[in-house]
């Protein structure tokens, strides 16, 4: 099968859905030439009516999507950083999420908020966060966090066709990652977890960039005879808790990994749901790996806050009851794939 990057997969999904449905349009700051390269060719093909550049006006970007959706359009807002979405907190957490509910449940509000997320770029406090916990916490928003090019394309097409607001989180460090994506049309349903790697000794639940870190750790541990199952829920709302629970019933041990702040976070939510459903099936306590309860510092300091491969390996070792530390390779310095910047448009 052909291999394309995560960035190209996103671009294909946008191009295909905008071609298929003329009510789909994109709105945001410099979306005509999106600096992370996911919009290549869109402005040239669809024009300024459907690829709409705005001022720095997050509330108007995020909120106008609600109005356009109420009137029968399918807007896609692109915000390059999660922090920008939180500027428009009222618009995303109240208007997009709750407008249908508080008006009696008769309207459809099809929106995709495509948001760039993630640390490990030295970006400091306000350019490194994921904040998926806030979104998962809010009733009325669906939440997808693709980890591979295949998932990115299939989930984005589903998000665009969904009749509800979907927050779609794209990790910056995944954009250049290559993976198999078929030529033919496909979509991936929401609420269906994917076992990224089968294993029998322990289950590790992770999303987004954390899937990549976990896979890397799992491959290193395989050499030491430890078989790690890596489970990616792919969407956190809806959450496929059944598949998580059945994996835990099989391995009887679980570690949950998330890039967002640990406190009141995704790991706590999933962990508690596992306890409620499968407490008796566990042979060891659950361990969580997530960002420390600190803001994310810039530069080299961020490694003391963001989850590291060694943190994942240590949690696995602890749940397995190993006396010896499972040492794994540390993360190298991040490298942005900026190939796309060489030929804009």
């Amino acid at each position, binding site marked *: 099968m052909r291999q394309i990057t995560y960035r190209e997969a996103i671009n294909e999904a946008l191009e295909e859905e905008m071609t298929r449905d003329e009510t789909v349009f994109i709105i945001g700051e410099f979306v005509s030439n999106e600096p992370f390269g996911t919009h290549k060719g869109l402005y040239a093909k669809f024009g300024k009516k459907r690829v709409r550049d705005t001022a720095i006006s997050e*509330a*108007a970007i995020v909120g106008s*999507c609600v*109005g356009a959706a*109420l009137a029968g*359009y399918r807007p896609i807002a692109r915000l390059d950083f999660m922090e920008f979405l939180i500027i428009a907190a009222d618009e995303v957490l*109240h208007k997009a999420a709750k*407008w249908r509910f508080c008006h009696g*449940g008769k309207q459809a509000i099809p929106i995709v908020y495509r948001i760039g997320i993630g640390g490990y770029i030295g970006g400091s406090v306000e350019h490194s966060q994921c904040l998926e916990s806030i979104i998962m916490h809010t009733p009325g928003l669906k939440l997808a966090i693709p980890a591979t090019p295949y998932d990115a394309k299939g989930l984005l097409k589903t998000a665009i066709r969904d*009749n509800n607001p979907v927050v779609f989180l794209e990790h910056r460090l995944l954009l250049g990652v290559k993976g198999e994506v078929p030529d033919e049309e496909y979509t991936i349903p929401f609420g269906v977890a994917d076992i990224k790697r089968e294993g029998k000794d322990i289950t590790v639940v992770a999303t987004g960039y954390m899937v990549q870190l976990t896979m890397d750790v799992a491959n290193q541990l395989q050499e030491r005879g430890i078989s790690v199952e890596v489970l990616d829920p792919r969407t956190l709302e809806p959450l496929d808790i059944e598949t998580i629970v059945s994996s835990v019933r099989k391995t009887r041990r679980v570690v949950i990994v998330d890039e967002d702040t640990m406190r009141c976070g995704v790991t706590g939510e999933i962990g508690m749901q596992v306890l409620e459903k499968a407490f008796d099936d566990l042979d060891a306590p659950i361990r969580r790996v997530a960002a420390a309860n600190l803001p994310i510092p810039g530069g080299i300091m961020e490694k003391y806050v963001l989850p590291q491969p060694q943190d994942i390996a240590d949690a696995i070792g602890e749940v397995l009851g190993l006396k010896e530390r499972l040492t794994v390779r540390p993360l190298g310095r991040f490298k942005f794939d900026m190939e796309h910047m060489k030929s804009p448009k």
Partner: protein
Amino acid sequence: MELTKEQKIKLYTNMVRVRKLDEMMVKGILAGKTLAFFHSQQGQEAVGVGACTFLRKDDFIFYSHRGHGISKLLPKGVPSRAIIAEHYGKATGTCGGISGFHTSDMELGIPGISGTLGGDFVIAAGLGIAAKMRGKGQVVVCIQGEGTYGRGTFHETMLMAANWKLPVIWGVENNLYMGCTPISEIHPKENFADLAVGYGVPALVVDGQDVIAVHEAFQTAVDRARAGEGPSMIECKTYRIRSHAEGIPDLRITEPRPQEEIEAWKKRDPINLFQEKLLKEGILTPVNVEWIDREATKEMEEAERVATEDPLPDKAVLQKALYAD
């Protein structure tokens, strides 16, 4: 274009209907039937009625908490029974009894209301984008209280609407008080309409007690928007007769609002002013006036009676209301 006799009678009748419904809503609070709250708009009828009575069915409107929108909703065709029923928490209410006080009906061009003030501006812009893309001449009329124009969302929206020439008409329903705060405490200038100047958007200040003046100002703006010429802003100077919300003291900062101020504005009651004019023009007779009053009273009494008997919603609707299929 000069309004016909029938159109003038319609404006008058709508104002009377809005006043009678407002009075019924106040009674609903006193009777303990209204489950949340009510913000009476008595004295401000001409703004919504003048702006919304002759809009197209597929035009969109946004209203505020003032009167919970009734001066815009009745002219746009929402039945009074459904509005009362929503306040009584009934399944037949404008939002199925879920909202407490919201009204939404996309068939009538009513998307709903933001709970946070100023949240509607950006949504109105989105409907403006849709209306413009669709190209059928639809317009969006978004009327908010003057205090709401303090929100930053207004700046972002105005920039977007002006830049893309969106067919949106921004109405400032300036009743001179933001809650108990007189606007001189929160706004550096007399006219909020001046805000439009920086965006190159035409703006107008009109007497909000004169329903014809309000209608004409909005009609000009609507015609402009339909022709693709972009947004306008209209400020209507008006005054609310009752307290900010039923049951709370009617204050100016920390003292009671001056009685002489209230009495002076009562002399400029929009319904009385228009009634006098129509009587003088021979468009209405005292008999007509009495008949319109009686019919409106009957409508609201019947609506209230039916709403009282309407069923309560089932708990199961909550789960279904969260996501669309």
